[in-house]
């Protein structure tokens, strides 16, 4: 044991020497961005806007598209107020059509446009009918409430009829072969076109919801409660739970499923009275919000990287690993201390290593990550942002996430969340977003919204066995049998925008309900399955949607996906273990519009950025950022933070490069597997992308959850975030077995070399006389007796 300790001491001393000398060497290296500004002050560079692209407002005003879309938007408003005649509307729609077609040169296909026109014609038709219904409803509404109830009765009766019809339909479908089905459907369509007053087989669900708008305007005191709900119950349910699943078939053959669960509660967490009676809102989160005075909390755990160019934009973006950003209330005095405690608590709640979030990976963005909820004050000193790019995501994170749901994993959509399937995917992301939202249209009071989202992309080859054929069972190994009983709405949406006539894929069981939603600057069409309706489950009492591509076997190439307007790449260039260069490429694929993006990158301190080497160029020219916020790092204390506001020219690639030097870590600062490399979290690109269609700016309307996350302030553009790839950087790593070799060598040298020398130097040499032999001794004794001198 003593020997071991001795060795250990040697080892310790040697490594200390090695490390300290290494560090010294590094410290004496000249220049570098960090060293020059080592005082720790922020350097903020102000530059004026580049003159060329000018601001987006002018552009949009000059465009015919937007006018048309404004018409489109205002149409709804006029309708609610003045109720224009149908002829006018038709005219308007005609003009809209005429103007919209030149506005879509991004969609490269012209043949498709024809199809679109066709479909649009049909849509118009159905919409007209719907509008008729609406106007009828409005009239009744304005008259008296009794009539309202009567109409509701009628509606329910209609619905009953519908459901019975549907059941009949489904049974028929079961009996019929596929071809026959198609035939019948065609026939049905013909019938539709001929006989207008007949019952529709496809009904449009209003999502832009002029209907709801009317309610809000006419009967404001109802405040969110749907009027169809039971009015006699005196205490209005203060919390509300909705669940939703969106399925989007991707052009690559993969399939994207996005779950959203939303709990809204009218509780005032910051009020004087303590919130103690929890019903739908999870208590564990509610207590955290109260204790740490959290205004907004966004946390995501992601495995895999979202491939924008293959899959398009996700409904909710998230970077690989864990991401946490929190806005605290302005009553918090010690924000950093609260942040540290909060991360610890969250690590316990979500079974994740969030306690690794400390000052070395926390940044305080100055312009990015504005609050997503309502609130008038945005002082960025109450914002903290951190990512852990290496965080693994597995069942232990999913379990506590599921426990936050009112129905757990027992009923509703959450029965599909089985870890064996969810983690057998190319991309998996789960998130929790807590934010204050408007409770009433006037936005005088707030309610807390908890959104739990889970996004997953199943691969065509690993999960789909290479067949372009998906079903709920194939994806999740479960089918749906019921909605969560606590949910006020429970819906499954399937994106059928590319499939208006069913020519691409076939969706079974067919649903009569269609809806449209503006999401990510595009108007998409969805088939809707309402799980609260018993009819959705059919006769088998379970819903197992089947998506079958028609031309999967004879190699017909599916339609090309629209190129996403914005995407980005990032990589490390350079060689060797001393210097390197981070390249960030930001693509603007819009053919003629420039738009602003805000780039945020947080780089750990052990990559020392040389900020004087920062270059931004697009189309071969220097692109001067109109805003730069740079906060240099401090060793072992805080990371670099770089924020830039850039204007991306149309149809261009903007390249941001900055050089860096790798620092030497101390012996104990290396991870147990240092040769794996060190991660640098994703850069965040926030952008205002020009929209093809008018965005919905009214935040109080009921919309599908997937389209209502980012608040929208203007119609001409929409906000989105894009995350770049995280970087994996190799740092100069010592050979950790080297100290042992050194110890062995030193010990040998000490023992052999120094030992023998020391021995030589300290020994006293004496001449030792060899004792005489026995014969000689006897001879000497005899000689002594004789008196003769000895031998």
């Amino acid at each position, binding site marked *: *044991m003593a020997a*071991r300790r001795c*060795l250990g*001491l040697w080892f*310790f001393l040697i490594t200390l020497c090695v490390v300290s000398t290494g560090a010294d060497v590094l410290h004496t290296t000249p220049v570098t961005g960090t060293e020059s500004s080592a005082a*720790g002050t*922020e350097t903020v560079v*102000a530059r004026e806007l580049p003159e060329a692209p000018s*601001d987006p407002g002018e552009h949009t005003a000059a465009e015919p598209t937007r006018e048309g879309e404004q018409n489109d938007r205002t149409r709804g408003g006029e309708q609610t107020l003045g109720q224009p005649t149908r002829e006018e509307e038709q005219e308007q729609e005609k003009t809209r059509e005429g103007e919209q077609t030149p506005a879509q040169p991004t969609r490269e296909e012209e043949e498709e446009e024809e199809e679109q026109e066709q479909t649009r014609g049909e849509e118009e038709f159905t919409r007209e009918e719907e509008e008729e219904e609406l106007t009828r409803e409005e009239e009744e509404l304005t008259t008296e409430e009794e009539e309202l109830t009567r109409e509701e009765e009628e509606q329910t009766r209609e619905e009953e009829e519908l459901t019975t019809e549907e059941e009949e339909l489904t049974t028929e479908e079961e009996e019929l072969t596929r071809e026959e089905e198609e035939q019948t459907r065609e026939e049905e369509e013909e019938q539709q076109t001929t006989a207008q007053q007949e019952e529709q087989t496809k009904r449009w669900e209003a999502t832009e919801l002029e209907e709801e708008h009317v309610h809000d305007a006419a009967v404001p005191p109802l405040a969110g409660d749907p009027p169809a709900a039971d009015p006699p119950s005196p205490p209005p349910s203060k919390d509300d739970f909705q669940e939703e699943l969106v399925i989007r078939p991707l052009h690559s053959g993969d399939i994207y499923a996005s779950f959203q669960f939303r709990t809204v509660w009218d509780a005032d967490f910051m*009020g004087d009275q303590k919130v103690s*009676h929890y019903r739908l809102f999870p208590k564990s989160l509610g207590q955290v919000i109260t204790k740490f005075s959290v205004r907004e909390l966004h946390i995501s755990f992601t*495995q895999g990287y979202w491939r924008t160019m293959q899959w398009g934009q996700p409904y909710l973006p998230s970077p690989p690993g864990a991401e946490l950003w929190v806005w605290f209330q302005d009553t918090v005095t*010690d924000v*950093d*201390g609260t942040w*540290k405690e909060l991360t*610890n608590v969250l*690590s*316990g*709640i979500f*079974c994740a*290593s969030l*306690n*690794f979030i400390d*000052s070395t990976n926390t940044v305080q963005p100055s*312009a990015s990550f*504005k*609050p*997503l909820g*309502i609130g*008038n004050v945005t002082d*960025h*000193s109450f914002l903290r942002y951190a990512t852990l790019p290496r965080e*693994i*995501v*597995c*069942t*232990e994170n999913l*379990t506590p996430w599921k426990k936050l749901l009112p129905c757990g994993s027992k009923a509703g959509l959450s029965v599909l969340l089985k*870890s*064996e399937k969810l983690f*057998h995917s190319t991309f998996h992301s789960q998130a929790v977003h807590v934010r204050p939202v*408007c409770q009433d249209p006037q*936005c*005088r*009071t707030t309610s807390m919204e908890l959104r739990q989202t889970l996004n997953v992309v199943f691969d065509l080859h690993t999960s789909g066995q290479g067949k372009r054929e998906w079903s709920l069972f194939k994806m999740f190994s479960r089918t749906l049998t019921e909605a969560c009983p606590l949910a006020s709405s429970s819906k499954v949406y399937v994106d059928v925008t590319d499939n208006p006539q069913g020519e691409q894929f076939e969706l079974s069981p067919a649903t009569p309900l269609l809806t449209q939603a503006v999401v990510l600057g595009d108007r998409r069409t969805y088939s809707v399955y309402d799980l609260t309706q018993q009819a959705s489950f059919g006769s088998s009492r379970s819903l197992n949607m089947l998506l079958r591509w028609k031309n999967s076997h004879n190699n017909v190439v599916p339609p090309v996906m629209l190129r996403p307007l914005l995407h980005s790449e990032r990589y490390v260039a350079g060689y060797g273990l001393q210097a390197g260069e981070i390249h960030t490429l930001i693509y603007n694929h819009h053919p003629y519009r420039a738009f*602003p993006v*805000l780039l945020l990158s947080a780089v750990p301190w052990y990559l020392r950025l040389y900020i004087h080497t920062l270059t931004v160029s697009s189309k071969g020219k220097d692109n001067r950022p*109109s*805003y730069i916020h740079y906060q240099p790092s401090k060793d072992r204390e805080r990371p670099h933070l770089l924020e830039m*506001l850039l204007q991306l020219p149309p149809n261009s690639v903007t390249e941001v490069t900055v050089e860096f030097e790798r620092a030497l870590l101390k012996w104990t600062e290396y*991870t*147990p*597997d240092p040769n794996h490399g060190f991660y640098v979290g994703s850069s965040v690109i*926030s952008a*205002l992308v020009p929209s093809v269609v008018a965005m919905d700016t009214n*935040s109080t309307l009921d919309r599908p959850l997937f389209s209502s996350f980012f*608040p929208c*302030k203007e119609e001409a553009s929409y*906000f989105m975030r894009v995350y770049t790839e995280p970087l994996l950087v190799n740092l100069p790593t010592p050979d950790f077995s080297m100290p042992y070799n050194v110890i062995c060598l030193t010990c040998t040298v000490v023992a052999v070399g120094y030992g023998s020398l020391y021995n030589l130097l300290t020994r006293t040499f004496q001449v030792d006389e060899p004792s005489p032999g026995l014969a000689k001794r006897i001879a000497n004794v005899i000689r002594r007796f004789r008196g003769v001198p000895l031998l």
Partner: protein
Amino acid sequence: MARHCTVKIFVLLSLFNLSFLVSTNNIEDKAGQFFNSGHTNNWAVLVCTSRFWFNYRHVANTLSVYRSVKRLGIPDSRIVLMLADDMACNHRNPKPATVFSHKNMELNVYGDDVEVDYRGYEVTVENFLRVLTGRLPASTPRSKRLLSDDRSNILIYLTGHGGNGFLKFQDSEEISNVELADAFEQMWQKRRYNELLFIIDTCQGASMYERFYSPNLMALASSQVGEDSLSHQPDLAIGVHLMDRYTFYLLEFLEDIHPSSTTNMNQLFKVCPKSQCVSTPGHRTDLFLRDPGRVLITDFFGSVRKVEITMETINLSSPMEPLPERILSEDRQRETQYYVDQLPVSVIIHQVNTHTHTHTHTHTHTHTHTHTHTHTHTHTCTHTPLPPMFWNMFIL
């Protein structure tokens, strides 16, 4: 102790007096059982200390014990599970979100509702010793703490790569048997356990309990000093060995245990004889005060739930007072709030101008404020002082 005895006798007598009709033997048995184990709650600390995919079997070892204790009634809140690497969602795992203990993917020990408390880089010697001794930072969540008391029976299971007198953590640091013995002594002095069962599955495992000196400890190891512990169950589909031999047979043994079984510790000592294990499992009972033959397996692997059944009806429908309806007074009616612009370009650019031209502007003030925040944080960041033994971990 004497007082305990008198209490025991008194209770026994009173029970005896009260129920003449019931046979006396029955009562004595029941009362005996009631007073037999001196603990009121159960805890488990299960640690896998190995990183990297080829150490799959160590994670499977730990998870199989986790599965057993959870099945026998210890809830997740009383299990501290430490896994040094992620095997379930490892990219090399052909079936993600599973960890199998048996060949041909027969038994998935990972389950669908596992809760891992410490994972990845968090599994360090320091954290392990802090969990045992309870010297954790104040903000540590409850799920990461061992909140045991002097009536707790604790099961501690360790597995990983070890040698004579040490166990490696994450292939980068070690815990020595002296440190471990000192930690247990500290636990005893702080009255953090009633009885403690220590099981270790590693090479030369018996060396880890040699230095124990605290009372009420029972220890088991998979191999003697000088012996290697060997792996079991190679699986061609997964490509690694799934389990270690000792824990494999321990799992087989535990699978037959149910919460009311009367299997005792002596049977546990017989698990995995040399013919199966190849190594010689060892155990140590000299520090333990009770006779191992009278200690049930469920005293450590299960959870105590002393349930008293009452025949009286309890009326719970007491008139609940409805909360006074919160009336939104006028002062609570805030001004109209709105959603913030996500990317206010002009505001951001304006922000710059104020920065560079006027230093007395409020914006600069707020920023200097944040600086002081970070400063104070870094300087006042205090850790609880470590006991001297923690320095040992730097000495190899």
